[in-house]
């Protein structure tokens, strides 16, 4: 009885410690609590997988550090997939605050596959103006971005010889945390230049994109950390990568956190009903 009364007013700090530990643990040592791949992520994976080797995949980094836990793992997973399939990766972005993240990915990932900057991957940087940038890239990428993010002329980068404008690129994956983002790529790049558009979004904004998926305008969608984890698993399963999977680890944390909260609620209710019965 006393035990239940104690439970009812359990020190919140115990709750915090338990939760903190259980969330941290899987990050250090992923458990792989069975992330299964949903159809939306599978569609994106298939689309990227079916691009012939040597072609270029465009990835738009439209998010800032605040959405990094959800969207950055998507960026690395899609890049790993592309490099494993011998695709080239062109990065660009509609958010100025996304530059640091794109640079990080462009430096960290290619060496894993022996890929080189300029030959297999190029980051264009950020240019203000959304529709003007996309439409300009449709005409000629060099008009919008004469130089890459670090000021190297695009003419000096061998990869850009085959990629003149959006029509040379079969598909774009827009990783967006809001607007501007995938909707702009749909509105301009898809309707005008017929590009395939796939997207990765934060969990909060994913629901808005489902109609586009149903109408077939979007080729696949990764929703939040779960979507990122699904993609990581797909990449791993196909033996494209053996790297640490941050989103899968995060999903484990996520699962444990949800379970902790639910167990807490159950314990709280048991204690509540037991003490109430005794009292009455």
């Amino acid at each position, binding site marked *: 009885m006393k035990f239940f009364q104690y439970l009812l007013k359990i020190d919140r700090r115990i709750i915090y410690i338990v939760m903190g530990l259980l969330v941290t643990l899987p990050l250090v040592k992923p458990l792989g609590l069975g992330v299964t791949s949903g159809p939306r992520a599978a569609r994106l994976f298939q689309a990227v997988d079916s691009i012939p080797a040597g072609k270029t995949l465009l990835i738009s980094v439209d998010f800032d550090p605040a959405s990094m836990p959800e969207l950055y793992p998507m960026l690395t997973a899609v890049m790993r997939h592309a490099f494993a399939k011998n695709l080239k990766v062109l990065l660009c972005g509609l958010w100025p605050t996304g530059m640091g993240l794109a640079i990080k990915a462009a430096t960290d990932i290619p060496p894993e596959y022996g890929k080189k900057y300029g030959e297999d991957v190029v980051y264009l940087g950020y240019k203000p103006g959304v529709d003007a940038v996309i439409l300009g890239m449709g005409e000629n990428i060099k008009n919008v971005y004469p130089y890459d993010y670090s000021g190297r002329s695009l003419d000096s980068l061998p990869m850009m010889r085959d990629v003149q404008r959006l029509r040379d690129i079969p598909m774009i994956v827009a990783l967006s945390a809001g607007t501007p983002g995938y909707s702009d790529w749909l509105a301009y790049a898809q*309707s005008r230049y017929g590009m395939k558009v796939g997207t990765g979004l934060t969990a909060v904004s994913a629901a808005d994109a489902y109609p586009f998926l149903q109408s077939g305008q979007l080729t696949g969608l990764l929703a939040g950390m779960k979507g990122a984890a699904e993609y990581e698993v797909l990449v791993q399963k196909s033996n494209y990568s053996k790297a640490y999977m941050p989103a899968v680890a995060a999903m484990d944390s996520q699962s444990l956190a949800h379970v902790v909260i639910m167990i807490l609620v159950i314990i709280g209710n048991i204690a509540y009903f037991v003490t109430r019965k005794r009292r009455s």
Partner: protein
Amino acid sequence: MIPFLILLLAAGPAAPPATDTAAPPPVQRLAAPAGVKAFDTPNDQGKSITLRWSAGDALAQAWLVERTGPEGPKVISTNAAGDIGYLDEDVKDRILYAYRIAAVAGADTVWSGPTPAVSSSPQVFNTARMNILIAMVVFFMLVVYYIETAKKGKNLFVRRIAGLDAVEEAVGRATEMGKPIIYVPGLGSVADLATIASLNILGEVAKKVAQYDSALLVPNRDPIVYTVAREMVKESYAKAGRPDAFKQDSVFFVTDQQFAFAAAVDGLMVREKPATNFFLGMFWAESLILAETGAQTGAIQIAGTDQVFQLPFFITACDYTLIGEELYAASAYLSREPLLLGSLKAQDYGKLLILVVVVVGSVLLLLSKVPAFSVFSHIAGFFNIN
């Protein structure tokens, strides 16, 4: 001159290729686009002409849009096959333009005839917003009518709102315990309606605080809201007959940054150990940060917001929560001022009207499935917004 030019142009590229005649019969001839219409884009600020057409057959792979204006004919757009419309925003007002569209399939290009010349101009009334105007006029009449009725002294009933009945008790409790009351008027600006509602409630709460002689702390995130809140509290103390009890630094500005504000108010609650917290107005993600810290200090908490996404957190962490519209009813409820009660009545009739429209509209729309009533299918269009 212009039609002549168009004719000339039409004769050129549209001439059938020589191979056509030699080809075996199964090859279908590409049909010209049909029903090409060009008109001034309605309800806009001018400088725009809208084009619409339909496909003559399924063969077309792309469309060309050609405009002929003072500067002569010019192809202004290439559309993908499914894209049968164009918004020309590169025109000048009150200048005549003619358009024609070509269907393109492989090497074939077949032009439509030119449209009659049209010009663009700005409009003075946006007819697409007629629905909003009607709704506004109807609701305004309701508000004015019931306020006038209230002025004549008709007694108006208001149902119980638990969170507001608790205000008196909460203020009294603070006096008994000798602890302060914290009132956060939300993080919105003064242009946010919930903030205005909250400030009105603050006025009523401050009156009670002055009567009970408790201490009041009002941290603010918006500088203008801070100024207004300060005036309101000062005024309330004066109205309660205790202008001397108003302390200058009881209403203060913290910072305009959301989470820095939350951090500071958290600190304030932990250190001042208030008896009562009010969180009324606009709140975002910080709602639970504030409410949970407050709950841990053991304060009675009364919250209210019109931010649907934050309501669950207030509901779980606070003792009383004003849900959505209850926040707007609060100042009328607390002050019992007939003018404010009148508008509450108008709001109720407004809601009733919305329900009537929704039910009747739905019935008619469902009836439109029956061929005889198919006219009703246009009802949904009335609620399009633009």
